[in-house]
């Protein structure tokens, strides 16, 4: 049994890339929360990796452990109640979980930066945006207040905030939602990190603004040749931006694939369900498909395949045996590079 924990090199990362090996590699990561009601197993053996210039989209319904995985990578998990009983998070080959607090802090913001979903609550309400942007340069680069301010203005220009110079001393609440998210992006970009994790960066925005912010993010990622982990529950936004996709369910990766293949031929019933629930122009007026049932209770994850209570293809084996993430092949056995599915019946799903 080969368990896929590498989907590297395919498709070819955007932009030039002379680094060898992935930038970030998450290996068999487990995260659990010890709460009054019991132990919630939020992440149960996640494997994924990102190279420089590459965009990995992490997909899944809310509660599937996407954010918790990202927080574990950033080292901003609430511990306690959170705990990482098992796993490795390799950044440029070094396990960050074994680093000292100070070593990890040096990586945060400088090497790996994060963009959060709700920019209004994620920016400090009582500090000006200029201060919050400039802080990156003052703390990490030891710049003077004046230099940091100039840098902050340049950053705001870079993310195309109009009248940056005049607005540098404004506070987060004085900006529109889209502009605030641009400020978050600028802050993440400040020290030109190797990797950015964007956790649902457009979910809180108006539909009209979502595309602009997404385009900006994609453009900056290309220009700086950064790795990008784009977390979303919206399959619609990732098609143009991502190189590969990892679908999460109940704290596991259930399918991985290069982005366009997954739309054409999903190899997991859950992915299939997600795809069918995207609103489509050619099906206007028809009732939207929704996956039946609720996401699992993480205190009591169903035995076998966690998706089995909601899966139309479930058989007895699904209720007893946990399916491993196995390579997906063509009908004749040719390897489909970068593809994997954690379903006992992946063959039936992709070829049936």
């Amino acid at each position, binding site marked *: 049994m080969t368990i896929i924990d590498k989907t590297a090199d395919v498709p070819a990362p955007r932009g030039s890339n002379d680094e060898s090996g992935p930038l970030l590699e998450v290996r068999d990561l487990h995260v659990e929360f010890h709460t009054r009601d019991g132990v919630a197993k939020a992440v149960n053996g996640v494997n994924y990796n990102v190279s420089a210039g590459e965009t990995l989209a992490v997909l899944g319904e809310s509660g599937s452990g996407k954010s918790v995985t990202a927080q574990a990578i*950033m080292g*901003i998990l609430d511990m306690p109640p959170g705990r990482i009983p098992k796993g490795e998070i390799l950044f440029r080959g070094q396990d960050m979980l074994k680093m000292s607090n100070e070593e990890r*802090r*040096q*990586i*945060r*913001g*400088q090497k790996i*930066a*994060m963009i*959060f979903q*709700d920019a209004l*609550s*994620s*920016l*400090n*309400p*009582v*500090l*000006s945006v200029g201060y919050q942007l400039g*802080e*990156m340069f003052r*703390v*990490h680069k030891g710049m003077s207040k004046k230099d940091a301010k100039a840098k902050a203005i340049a950053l705001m220009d870079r993310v195309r905030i109009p009248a940056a110079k005049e607005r540098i001393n404004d*506070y987060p*609440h004085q900006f529109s939602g889209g502009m605030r998210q641009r400020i978050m992006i600028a*802050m993440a970009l400040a020290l030109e990190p190797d990797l950015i994790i964007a956790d649902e960066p457009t979910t809180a925005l108006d539909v009209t603004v979502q595309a602009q912010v997404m385009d900006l993010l994609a453009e900056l990622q290309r220009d700086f040749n950064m790795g990008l982990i784009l977390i979303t529950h919206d399959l619609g936004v990732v098609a143009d931006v991502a190189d590969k996709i990892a679908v999460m369910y109940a704290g596991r990766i259930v399918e991985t694939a290069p982005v366009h293949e997954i739309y054409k031929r999903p190899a997991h019933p859950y992915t299939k369900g997600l795809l069918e629930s995207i609103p489509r122009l050619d099906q206007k007026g028809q009732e939207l498909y929704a996956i039946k049932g609720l996401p699992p209770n993480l205190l009591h994850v169903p035995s076998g395949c966690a998706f089995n209570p909601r899966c139309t293809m479930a058989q007895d084996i699904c209720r007893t045996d946990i399916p491993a993430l196995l390579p997906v092949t063509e009908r004749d056995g040719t390897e489909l590079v970068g593809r994997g599915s954690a379903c006992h019946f992946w063959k039936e799903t992709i070829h049936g």
Partner: protein
Amino acid sequence: MGRYVARRLLQMIPVFLGSTMLVFAMMYALPGDPVRALAGEQTVDPAQIAAMKHKLGLDLPLWHQYWNYLTGLFHWDFGTEIASGRPVADTIADAFPITIRLALFAFLFTVIVGISMGVFAGLKADTLRDRGLLILTLLLISVPSFVLGFLGQYLFAFQLGWVDPNVSAEANWSELFLPAVVLGSLSLAYVARLTRTSVAENLRADYMRTAVAKGLPRRRVVGVHLMRNSMIPVVTFLGTDLGALLGGAVVTEGIFNVQGVGRAVFGALQHREGATVVGIVTLIVIVYLVTSLLVDLLYAVLDPRIRYA
């Protein structure tokens, strides 16, 4: 902002007039007569008393007396004490600085110790030290301050002999330490609790997660991002508290025999020295109004989301 300050200052005028008038009327309504009291047990010619009252303007109707008092105030004349003939301004000048010093001392104690304790507990909410603070503050809140005062006096002055039970006329800082601690203890409990709750709440805020994700050192995450937000409700409370401390000082002064406004007001009430009482109360009201304005302005500085119009 300028307009706001102007409006607030204008609003002080009716508050000032109302409070002085109220105290003035209360003094007028009190039984007893300062002029007759001058004579003591002796029987005096009623005509002589009437003449004296006329000279002091005490035979005029209330509104006229009040008017005379107000016009005097505009010339910085607080009136004259009937018994001693001493200007009320002198009494105030003697007593006020001592009380202000006591209240400020108590205020500083409240701010420094209360906030430190609150932050200490709030950073680790629901731990042993947090519970400890909760119990301590509950104790301070439930025990009346005069009990605390007598206890402190008994323990530190009479039993241990560390301090003098009475504060001398100079009322220097070291003498005022114990009275200030007693006076500030109730506020201290409130400040500590408020800070603790505010810190614990803000600790969970999204912007704190962002600050950590930016790779800022912990002392900056706590010292700048957490504190700037957590102090907003505390500052508001402290503003109203400074006035309350001035008022509370009156009781504490009695216990420790401090020669402040508490004693002055008490004495003036006994001798029906209306001008002294009104003068002191007026000053306390003004201090209260000014500090609350300052705090409101400080509030706007701390929280940019507040707009004054």
